[in-house]
């Protein structure tokens, strides 16, 4: 990702956009912290917010016409917030908390002509910037039209405070000064820039060649002259906030004029504007405005707190609300992208975001939720690919899953055959590696059904689509895998591929689009299902769509149709279909960040209180591992008395999945095709006795039983191992590829009892592996 791509990505995330009120405010007061402070009774905190943004908070705070109010999101569920009353409460009950700094003097002399509020604001802003400002008015004091407000609305002392504030910033105040035509002309000559406050200076008193002020820059036609303030053209009422807006805009223009830079560039963020902010209010309780019991006295502290508490603190965070990954790393797409960019830019030093990049499930839920369809998963996946290419991908997050994939593609698990007794295949059943690993008997039953009911020959292929390599950013490995698959399908005479796995389906549709591929569920929906009397449980299920079926509408419809035919009562929830959560396997999340993988499974399981029904083998097993009662759809199409309650089936774990795949191939080959299956490697003959506790530990440490078998085989063959004379346990190690495995075991007549297993990647000296 280069900087331009980062900027484009960041621009699509709207979380940092201004909320509706702040955008509508011509001065962009940071309303959310203002309201949050008031809500907790922190008036000084609220005042600090006003002091940071408003010129003369004591004045605006009392008179603001609250142009933000119509855009308040709360107005859609109750009344908009009483911004004006809350500002008044705040400034009436606090003194200035923050004094903005005066920048070092930089020269440039400015005459601010007129004493109205736009003149005061322009003088204040320019004084703060270190300019020499002289405010000249014919009046005896500051304020212009502000002087017409009642003492209740605007205490006169606020204008006196304003005068001393201006003087503190070095502004020279000249009251009761004649501004006849010739004196104005003299001021234009004398000063580098002149601002005319139209609240005091009528248009006919502007220089003869002044023309109309430019609406953006407020510049007049005569060089160095600027004008605004007073009643806006086309309106009839005086607005305090408009005076402040004009004064601030004029000050900025004059600053740019003195710096001799563009007066017009990048000014679209100034003044009242709209925002791209996206805030969902569904499910929020309506709340009516809190009015002051005594309107003359204004809010009490309690009333102000209650009213400010109605602020819904508008933000987007729609993706973060649902995504366990973004919540875990406390990021939203914009901050996430920046961290990824910075991580990739590191030449020397620690790449702290590696784990984060590898932990995204790549499921795509966030993209569907996002009003701008931000592709976080694609960003993470492409970054992984970059990391692999540049040699910066750490080995540990994906090694185990990639070894698992290699095993699924090894001679022990792969099988490609036409239907027994035939030499052509119109169809080819591709169960996918995870169904073969999780429920091999379901593969056998399904294949039998397809072979019986479909005409033209139904071939079988056991293997892996390569999605782990795709997720791991291993482009070369993935490309080779998918190309091998395409070649194999071609050699089978291009049958229609029927896959039971929606991940395989999504991969084939994207990367093997010349092939005809369909889902098992669509095919089964058109076939006659086996009839069993006891297959319809009374209870309702929640159907767990897998994340990889997000964009497979037809597939999802077929699953529901099948459920109806089977008499399974399905309860839908909001985070299914296009919004389905990932179970923690997607993107290899559970390998890069194991605890997060578990959390993701728990989030998916917790979407409903009903028993679960999955049709993705990985969802089924991960949800079961998370403690859910969950069955696989095939459990109800092919119910088996032997396997017991399908809802109570345990997660087989990694070792059992390996064994299931290898055994499935052997069984099918010998029973259906009457072929000799090749012998299994020598270590498979080592008989292990492992308690559930140790098995769970080994699973969590990603140590397979075959790794254990290899260690023991080696130790027993070479006699190289340690022994504990107290209990006769043995401790041995072996490094089959990259990881060194250690096993504490005890030989018995029934086999080897396994007491412990652990591993490391660090290498011991040569000859010690």
């Amino acid at each position: 990702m280069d900087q331009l791509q980062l900027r484009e990505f960041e621009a699509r995330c709207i979380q940092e956009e201004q909320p509706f009120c702040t955008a509508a405010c011509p001065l962009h007061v940071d309303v959310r912290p203002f309201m949050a402070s008031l809500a907790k009774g922190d008036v000084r905190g609220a005042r600090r917010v006003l002091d940071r943004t408003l010129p003369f908070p004591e004045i605006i705070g009392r008179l603001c016409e609250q142009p933000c109010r119509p855009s308040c999101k709360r107005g859609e569920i109750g009344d908009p917030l009483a911004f004006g009353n809350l500002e008044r409460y705040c400034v009436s009950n606090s003194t200035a908390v923050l004094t903005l700094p005066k920048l070092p003097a930089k020269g440039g002399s400015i005459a601010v002509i007129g004493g109205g509020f736009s003149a005061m604001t322009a003088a204040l802003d320019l004084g703060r910037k270190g300019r020499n400002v002289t405010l000249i008015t014919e009046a005896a004091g500051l304020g212009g039209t502000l002087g017409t407000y009642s003492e209740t609305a605007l205490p006169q002392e606020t204008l006196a405070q304003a005068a001393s504030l201006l003087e503190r910033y070095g502004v020279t105040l000249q009251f009761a000064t004649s501004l006849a035509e010739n004196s104005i002309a003299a001021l234009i000559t004398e000063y580098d820039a002149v601002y005319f406050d139209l609240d005091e200076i009528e248009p006919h008193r502007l220089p003869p060649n002044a023309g109309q002020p430019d609406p953006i820059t407020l510049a007049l036609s005569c060089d160095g002259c600027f004008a605004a303030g007073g009643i806006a053209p086309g309106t009839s009422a005086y607005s305090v906030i408009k005076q402040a807006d004009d004064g601030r805009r004029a000050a900025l223009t004059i600053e740019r004029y003195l710096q001799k830079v563009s007066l017009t560039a990048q000014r679209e963020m100034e003044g009242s504007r709209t925002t791209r902010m996206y805030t969902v209010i569904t499910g929020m309780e309506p709340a009516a405005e809190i009015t002051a019991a005594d309107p003359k006295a204004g809010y009490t502290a309690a009333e102000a707190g209650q009213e400010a508490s109605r602020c819904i603190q508008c933000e987007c965070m729609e993706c973060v609300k649902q995504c366990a990954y973004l919540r875990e790393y406390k990021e939203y797409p914009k901050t996430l992208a920046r961290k990824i960019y910075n991580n990739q830019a590191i030449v020397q030093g620690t790449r702290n975001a590696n784990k984060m990049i590898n932990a995204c499930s790549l499921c795509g839920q966030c993209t569907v939720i996002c009003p701008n369809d931000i592709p976080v998963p694609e960003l993470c996946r492409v970054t992984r690919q970059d990391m692999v290419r540049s040699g910066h991908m750490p080995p540990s997050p994906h090694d185990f899953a990639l070894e698992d994939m290699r095993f699924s593609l090894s001679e022990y698990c792969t099988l490609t055959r036409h239907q027994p007794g035939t030499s052509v295949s119109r169809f080819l059943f591709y169960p996918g590696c995870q169904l073969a690993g999780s429920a091999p008997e379901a593969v056998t039953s399904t294949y039998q059904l397809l072979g019986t009911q479909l005409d033209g020959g139904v071939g079988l292929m056991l293997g892996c689509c390569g999605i782990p390599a795709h997720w791991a950013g291993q482009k070369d490995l993935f490309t080779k895998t998918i190309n091998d698959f395409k070649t194999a399908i071609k050699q089978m005479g291009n049958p229609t591929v029927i896959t039971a796995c929606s991940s395989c389906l999504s991969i084939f549709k994207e990367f093997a689009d010349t092939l005809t591929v369909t889902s098992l569920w669509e095919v089964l929906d058109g076939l006659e299902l086996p009839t069993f009397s006891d297959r319809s449980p009374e209870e309702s299920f929640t159907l767990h769509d897998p994340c990889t079926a997000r964009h497979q509408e037809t597939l999802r419809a077929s699953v529901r149709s099948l459920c109806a035919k089977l008499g399974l009562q399905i309860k839908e929830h909001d985070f299914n279909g296009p919004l389905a959560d990932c179970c923690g396997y997607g993107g290899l999340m559970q390998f890069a960040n194991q605890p997060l993988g578990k959390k993701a499974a728990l989030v998916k399981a917790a979407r409903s209180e009903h028993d679960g029904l999955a049709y993705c083998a990985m969802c089924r097993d991960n949800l079961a591992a998370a403690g859910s009662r969950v069955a696989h759809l095939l459990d109800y199409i092919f119910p088996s008395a032997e396997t017991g309650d399908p809802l109570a089936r345990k997660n087989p774990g990694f070792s059992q999945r390996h064994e299931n795949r290898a055994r499935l191939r052997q069984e099918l080959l010998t029973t259906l095709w009457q072929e000799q299956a090749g012998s299994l490697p020598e270590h498979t003959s080592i008989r292990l006795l492992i308690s559930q506790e140790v098995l769970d530990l080994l699973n969590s440490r990603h140590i397979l039983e075959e790794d254990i078998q290899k260690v023991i085989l080696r130790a027993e063959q070479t006699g190289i191992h340690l022994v504990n004379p107290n209990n006769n346990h043995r401790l041995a190690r072996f490094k089959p590829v990259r990881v060194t495995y250690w096993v504490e075991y005890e030989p018995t007549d029934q086999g080897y009892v396994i007491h412990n297993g652990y591993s490391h990647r660090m290498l011991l000296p040569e000859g010690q592996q």
Partner: protein
Amino acid sequence: MSTFSFIEDTTWQCVGCNQPLQPTKVNVTYLNSLFTVELMACPHCGFILVPESLAVGKMLEVEQLLEDK
């Protein structure tokens, strides 16, 4: 580079050499980094013991640090 010591009393003995293990300096490596550490090993055949606490503790920590370099 200083030597980190992970020596601890152990009941494990080398079965081939029938020897108790003794503290030994060894070089362990990972991803182009080399560390000299003191571990328990057989004084005769040199079989090095990496105890579980080290493998899942400090060693894992260093591995992950190096992977992110």
